[in-house]
């Protein structure tokens, strides 16, 4: 933020004197004293355009003693000291102008409110009633178009309803950087259109539906689905990534109909991504509703008491050869319950939220530099930074709202973005990012070459765990340069899991397992002695072949080695706490159904360590059990009650612990590993064959196609032609997909998305190789 004091000026609006920062637009100044001037094109987060002319006001004195002879658009009028503004409340000139413009706006509008999705929450409808004539004097034939125009598989446009405010086109150009829709034609047939052969595929396209001030833009998934006045709204936090978007979820008859971006100026402003908007947790047919136990090799429905007894017996039999694998869907409260369950009920530190390849170095980094730390790196800090360095982090794919905020800063504050990556991704290009090219896993060398300073922020993504020494050096280098550092994980529950202690080396609140005082602190709170030995990481647990596992919200395909998952879970007693049928259930002995995110309340901590409230949308849940209540029953059956009867109790207990103020965990030295050969570069694209996209077919269609990216020399070495289907081969299997040869791709590596598209799914998990590891390539005909 600039330290310069904001210059305040005095203006008078409808006789009310108000002080506003110099340059404030008249429409904003009026809002600050509670005067709403009608408007359509104006949007506080978009650049002013002055197109609709609905906000005309009288300016009897521009501050220089002279007035404007004609009404002025309040949305483009910068206030000046001493300016007098008269709105529709006090000026006949403004009233007449607004009524006139309103009549003109409705001239070609179909007034099809009875069949329009927007009716009931429509700015045009509301303002026509508030500021318009009772009846139009127009008696001609209205302009019509074939309807609707499909802008993308998800976004539809009914052109006859459009008032041409250009909010959608400005959003796509200014905010998301996907200028694939634009105004075309002119005069009365001006309309929003798109390129002949390029649909409006954007990760952020749903926002244009939300900001459309009329019913012109609709989402296919919600079109003709509900009337706004039949919906019940719940404020909540998005469960798809660590950005922490505030959302509003609307349901009718306990079925989620749509989700909207909430207004959270400090977090997602008024935007969200299409995954957060269109991919709901509810509505899947494979929802679990009763506990299941395995009998004669088959899972069969069982009562809760039977399932809990079976689970407790199996876990007891395993003794201390037991581990807890949690995934990214857990709220802070549920994560805290797992953390406590592992330590108290199972007596082990074998717990790890990283249902993905990780490293000991990363666990050390999280304990040392993340847990319990509010680094001061926030969205606002990103917006005002001079330079941001992205390390193993693709914001558009991995935290889309971070991407939007960076883009805003690039546009408005001349932020410079550097990305340490194998190539400049589409997202990086939209940030105008400078590429510091490196092979996957070798980010540290590139980072060491940069000259960091106090105006720089380094953002490390979860894949930095696979790049030896990167996290350790990020800590050292940023500390030395007094630069900012933040870890931005990919999943919504990750930051909460770190805080809750879902790590083998970490207790809640950043208390290191290896620190006796920290254990004593926790033991005092929990009234139980805690296991002393640090536990195993998720990779370690799978390799160790434990006797029993508790699995919560994990996907086997997210781990690096499917063989390790199969041999570990296949030969152990497995208790799965899950809300939908999962591949884990092939191995599960007991399945406990738990609540969907929409059926419970709680909190997610986003990457900034900011708490976001998860509101309970559906009060008619098919199962009343949250993870923490199921765990509570299980713990009680094991004779070690957790004392967590409800989410709010867990939240209160966790809050009372407070952060650890003692000695912090030390960093862990990196594994020294320099693989030789063709390296695998990969990350998850926002929209891919993830199960989160099940039930959202339109959204799934907008996923970017999967291609293997190769540099020309690498392609030549393996005799691969552009577009040819190739096989990327790892130690456990292969993935086949078309090749794209790009000058911009680093040589010596092949990049492919971690998962395919919903239409053509695959997972790099089938390779048995984590990003940064060695793979082989073969041309499509199987010849080398």
């Amino acid at each position: 933020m600039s330290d310069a004091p904001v210059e305040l000026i005095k203006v008078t609006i409808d006789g009310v004197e108000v002080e506003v920062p110099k340059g404030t637009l008249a429409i904003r100044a009026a809002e600050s004293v509670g005067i709403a001037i009608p408007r359509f094109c104006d949007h506080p987060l978009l650049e002013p355009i002055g197109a609709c002319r609905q906000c005309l006001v009288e300016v009897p004195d521009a501050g220089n003693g002279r007035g404007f002879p004609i009404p002025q658009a309040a949305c483009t009028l910068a206030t000046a000291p001493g300016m007098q503004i008269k709105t529709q409340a006090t000026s006949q000139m403004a009233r007449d102008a607004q009524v006139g413009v309103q009549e003109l706006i409705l001239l070609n509008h179909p007034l099809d409110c009875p069949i329009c999705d927007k009716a009931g929450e429509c700015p045009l409808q509301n303002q026509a009633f508030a500021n318009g004539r009772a009846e139009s004097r127009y008696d001609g034939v209205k302009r019509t178009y074939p309807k609707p125009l499909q802008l993308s598989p998800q976004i539809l446009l009914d052109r006859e309803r459009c008032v041409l405010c250009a909010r959608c086109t400005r959003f796509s150009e200014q905010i998301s950087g996907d200028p694939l829709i634009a105004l075309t034609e002119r005069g009365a047939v001006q309309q929003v259109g798109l390129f002949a052969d390029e649909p409006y595929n954007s990760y952020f396209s749903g926002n244009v539906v939300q900001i459309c001030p009329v019913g012109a833009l609709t989402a296919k998934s919600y079109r003709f689905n509900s009337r706004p006045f039949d919906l019940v709204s719940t404020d909540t936090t998005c469960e798809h990534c660590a950005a922490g978007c505030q959302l509003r979820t609307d349901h009718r008859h306990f079925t989620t109909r749509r989700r909207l971006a909430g207004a959270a100026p400090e977090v997602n402003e008024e935007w969200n991504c299409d995954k957060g908007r269109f991919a709901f947790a509810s509505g899947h047919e494979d929802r679990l509703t009763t506990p299941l136990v395995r009998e004669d090799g088959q899972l069969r429905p069982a009562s809760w008491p039977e399932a809990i007894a079976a689970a407790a017996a199996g876990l007891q039999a395993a003794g201390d050869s037991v581990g807890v694998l949690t995934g990214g869907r857990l709220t802070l409260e549920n994560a805290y319950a797992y953390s406590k369950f592992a330590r108290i009920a199972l007596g082990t530190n074998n717990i790890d939220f990283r249902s993905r390849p990780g490293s000991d170095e990363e666990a050390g980094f999280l304990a040392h530099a993340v847990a319990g730390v509010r680094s001061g790196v926030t969205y606002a800090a990103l917006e005002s930074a001079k330079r941001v360095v992205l390390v193993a982090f693709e914001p558009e794919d991995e935290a889309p709202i971070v991407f939007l905020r960076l883009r805003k800063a690039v546009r408005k504050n001349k932020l410079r973005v550097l990305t340490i990556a194998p190539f400049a991704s589409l997202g990086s290009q939209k940030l105008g990012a400078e590429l510091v090219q490196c092979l996957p896993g070798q980010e540290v060398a590139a980072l060491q070459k940069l000259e960091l300073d106090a105006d720089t922020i380094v953002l490390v993504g979860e894949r930095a765990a696979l790049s030896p020494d990167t996290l350790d050096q990020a800590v050292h280098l940023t500390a030395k340069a007094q630069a900012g550092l933040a870890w931005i994980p990919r999943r919504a529950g990750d930051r909460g899991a770190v805080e809750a202690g879902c790590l083998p080396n970490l207790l809640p609140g950043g208390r290191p397992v290896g620190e006796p005082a920290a254990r004593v602190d926790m033991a005092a709170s929990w009234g139980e002695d805690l296991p002393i030995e640090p536990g195993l990481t998720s990779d370690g647990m799978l390799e160790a072949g434990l006797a029993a596992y508790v699995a919560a919200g994990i996907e086997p395909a997210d781990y690096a080695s499917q063989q390790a998952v199969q041999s570990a879970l296949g030969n152990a007693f497995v208790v799965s706490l899950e809300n939908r049928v999962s591949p884990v259930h092939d191995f599960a002995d007991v399945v406990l159904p738990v609540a969907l995110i929409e059926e419970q309340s709680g909190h997610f901590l986003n990457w900034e360590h900011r708490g976001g409230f998860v509101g309970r949308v559906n009060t008619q849940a098919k199962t009343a059990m949250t993870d923490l209540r199921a765990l509570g029953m299980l713990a009680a059956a094991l004779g070690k009650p957790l004392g967590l009867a409800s989410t709010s109790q867990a939240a209160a207990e966790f809050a009372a612990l407070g952060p650890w103020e003692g000695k912090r965990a030390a960093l862990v030295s990196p594994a020294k590993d320099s693989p030789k050969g063709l390296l695998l570069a990969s990350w998850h694209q926002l929209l891919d064959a993830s199960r989160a996209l099940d039930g959202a077919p339109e959204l799934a269609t907008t996923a970017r196609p999967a291609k293997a990216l190769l540099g020309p020399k690498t392609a030549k070495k393996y005799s691969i032609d552009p577009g040819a289907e190739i096989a990327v081969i790892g130690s456990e299997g292969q993935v086949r997909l078309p090749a794209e040869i790009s000058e911009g791709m680093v040589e010596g590596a092949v990049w492919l998305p971690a998962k395919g598209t919903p239409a053509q799914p695959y997972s790099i998990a089938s390779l048995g190789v984590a990003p940064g590891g060695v793979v082989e390539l073969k041309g499509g005909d199987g010849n080398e």
Partner: protein
Amino acid sequence: MTDTFTPVLTANWGQPNSWKLSAYEAAGGYKAAAKALKMQPAEVLGVVKDSNLRGRGGAGFPVGMKWSFVPQDNPNPKYLVVNGDESEPGTCKDMPLLLASPHTLIEGMIISSYAINCHTAFVYIRGEVLHVHRRVRQAVAEAYEAGWLGKDIKGSGYDLDIIVHAGAGAYICGEETALLNSLEGRRGQPRLRPPFPAVEGLYASPTVINNVESIATVPSIINHGAEWFAGMGTEKSKGFTIYSLSGHVAKPGQYEAPLGITLRELLERAGGIRAGHELKFWTPGGSSTPILTAEHLDVPLDYEGLASAGSMMGTKALQIFDETVSVVRTTLRWVEFYKHESCGKCTPCREGTWWLVQLLRDFEQGVAAEGSVDKLLDVAGIVNGKSFCALAGGACACVTSAVKHFRAEFEQGYTTPAWEVLPYEASALFAVEGGDVR
């Protein structure tokens, strides 16, 4: 012998090959450029400022003052953009000038660019007039060859490139900020001001935009001096300009005269209204300036004189209509033009011109509702002064002024088609095949 009509700007139009560099130089061309390049840029600017030359594109803003708004401490390049998008109905001065003497403009651009420290200048020419575009390109090529453009012009150390750009045929691109958008390859729609082009214009750099005629006038001012120029015209409207006379006039065409001349004088020069007819109404500066009638024959045709008569100087396009012409029909045709040319950006213009056309059609066809003249005025009233740029205002000006002077003729539209009130054949200048002039 010089008199009121002694031409300056149009003096060489009648000479053989007047558009060629050789002919232009033989007639004394490029002397002003040579002279200016020996002066300091600030001196050149001073001369233009002292001459009180006002913009010839319609608004009449002092040219020298516009140039002085260019912030010379801005590190970005400075640009001169010449507006040759002449599209206003009735206006026909820049196109003939560019056809007859393109080098006058090029010389003016050299001097003007030099004065504002610009090294890349643009001419934006209306897309439909391909022959003018070709001629200007040819002239620019000739000027490069002769060393009047390019690096180190005639050893002065001054560099200038001129880029000739063809528009795509949009009236709105004559609006200076829409022109800049179009020149940058964007949609031809006007931009918000501020920032003004002088500060943030083409490619967000300081930009001066002047009409073809304004820039073409500059060489004569440099040649003869500011005092000479200021000695012509009226107190606040100095110098000479090109008036285009069209319509029911015996000898239509371009007439160069000092500002402040009257239509009566111009008509005398042009042989009067076509034989056997009398003046009914006229536009002083194209269809966007409120129409005037025979009672305004002695209004001085300068910025102040026309303003006091309730109209505007505009582009000095004098469209002359005699007593056979239906004012309803004429107004409809004009508003149809504005509807067609509305860029669509703002509601009042986009929807208002669309509605006005429908209302006016009813008047023309004699099916307008009783009393709907007031509705017509009312609709013009909710459009006028509410739009983003001046285009819609132009559309309303012809409607309101036509009703003001000829209300009864509109009221006949409640019952009688315009072609029955005033048969269209009578106003045709020449026979139309099939006889149907509707």
